[in-house]
């Protein structure tokens, strides 16, 4: 169980890196922590594990501040930065050192290396590892203490498609076993297949949170793509039904209406449909809408952006 309560972090200068962020993650679920780069995800996660002192608010794991846990790695598996391993140390040595602090058998380090698919590379130095291999090593280190909570910052970075699939399975299995997972990403596609809940953050503020189903339901697109055998006839039929349509480059029509009205209008005019679907991906649209000023004004001064969005 992870609980973040009114967490705020200011780096002097008055700019809030994290602004009154609250959310909880329940056992048995995977929570996706989503937002564009620089939105405050990493700062929130670092505050959660005590690396960054919050300006106000607090974060707890199972009701206890992370830094007050006797041996935190035995309760919370954390991977915040796969690059934060010494390049001159072997993968095996890295995990053996952690095993000593965690108080688990040294043999568990080898078991973890095998579990994350690094058997055969354990005697190589981390310097020689690809980013994907470092992510695997970091995940192995996070699981070393047999924790009940996992906190991973952008774990899919650098993983190949097979690795991303492996990680999805791992997170699902971990949650199925009653574990709590908090996983951050700046890419919706990466997490949408895996997570039960989403917390969307932008400019340090939570802009949306809820179950995937809730968010999808509240983000139904307001336009429909329809393609007919006779585009002109279909366009006329829709216009007659009071549904003006825009002709797209590919010959389909974009209609500001719901799917059912468009379908009925086509049926009434006996128009043959080849395609009828909501325009775009609702959740993805929502994500971009919630965080879009970032993409639109990437070159603008961030303080100016904050004023605009406020």
């Amino acid at each position, binding site marked *: 169980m992870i609980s973040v309560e009114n967490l705020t972090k200011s780096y002097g200068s008055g700019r809030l890196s994290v602004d009154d962020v609250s959310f909880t993650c329940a056992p048995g679920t995977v929570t996706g922590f989503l937002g564009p780069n620089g939105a405050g995800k*990493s700062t929130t996660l*670092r505050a959660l*594990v*005590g*690396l*960054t*002192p919050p300006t106000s608010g607090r974060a707890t794991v199972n009701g206890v501040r*992370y*830094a007050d*846990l*006797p*041996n*935190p*790695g*035995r*309760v919370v598996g*954390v991977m*915040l*930065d796969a*690059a*934060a*391993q*010494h*390049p*001159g*140390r072997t993968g095996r*040595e890295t995990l053996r*050192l*952690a095993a*000593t*602090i*965690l*108080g*688990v*058998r040294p043999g*568990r380090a080898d078991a973890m290396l095998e579990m994350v698919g690094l058997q055969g590379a354990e005697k190589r130095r981390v310097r020689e590892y690809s980013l994907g291999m470092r992510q695997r090593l970091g995940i192995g*280190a996070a699981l070393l203490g*047999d924790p009940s909570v996992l906190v991973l910052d952008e774990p899919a970075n650098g993983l190949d498609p097979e690795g991303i699939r492996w990680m999805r399975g791992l997170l699902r299995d971990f949650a199925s076993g009653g574990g709590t997972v908090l996983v951050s990403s700046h890419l919706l596609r990466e997490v949408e297949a895996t997570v039960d809940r989403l917390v969307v953050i932008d400019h340090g503020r939570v802009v949306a949170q809820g179950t995937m189903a809730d968010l999808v339901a509240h983000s139904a697109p307001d336009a429909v793509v329809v393609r007919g055998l006779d585009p002109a006839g279909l366009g006329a039929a829709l216009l007659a039904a009071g549904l003006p349509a825009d002709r797209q480059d590919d010959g389909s029509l974009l209609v500001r209406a719901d799917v059912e009205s468009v379908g009925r209008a086509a049926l009434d005019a006996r128009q043959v449909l080849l395609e009828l679907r909501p325009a775009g991906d609702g959740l993805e649209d929502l994500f971009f809408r919630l965080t879009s000023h970032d993409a639109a004004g990437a070159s603008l001064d961030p303080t100016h952006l904050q004023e605009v969005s406020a």
Partner: protein
Amino acid sequence: MTAVTTSVSLPATTPAIRRPSFATLTRVELRKMVDTRAGQALLAVTVLLSVAVVGYLSFTARDGLSYDAWLRDASYPVVALLPVIGILAMASEWTQRTALTTFTLTPRRLRVLGAKFTAAVVLGLLVTVVVDVIAAVGLVVRGLVLNADVTWGNLGSVLGGSAVSAALALVMGAAIGALVMQTAVAIVAYFVAPNVVLLAVASTMSDKAPWVDVNEAFGWLSRFDVSGHVGQLVTPLLLWIAVPFGVGLWRSVRRNVS
């Protein structure tokens, strides 16, 4: 050791959750100082330079076969390189960004920094003992070759002095490393800053120079020569060890780790 016998009989299940002891943290930090090529190279260079110095003396020394003099010569590389061990212990994790991993695993930063310091002192004293032995062996060999008598002097104060000067150099390195938190900058600061301050003070108010001269203070301490200049002893120690260490630890505990 007893730890080994208990770990053999541990059950397959995960053992109880306990706070890592200070001894465990120190053991881990000690291992971290010797399990990379950079750490091993530093130790090897330190010992090999001492061997080279003693080897040179073993072939050339005609007189002055005293352990005191030999050990002082053999210790030059140690006194120059031990501070680097201290600096690396306190600063390298910030430089390598592994501080993030270390302080996530053990959020009580002062305990970790204490373990790092203890590990550096243990390692430094081990190196000093090795160099003591190298110097002794070289001296004995030269004495046999020349068929001359060797003087060992007051072994207690000779060995004690060697340990004190090694420890002081290492501790000051650790203090500068803790303050600067950047390995390369800290090494430069260690060798440059005390001399710059000494020059500045000597050129403006020359009578105050002994009050900031850390090398002089270290020399007195390693000869156990304390009386008559306690103030000139304590001030450089405060200035170059206590203050940087205190400020460095204070910053380390508070700073944002990223």
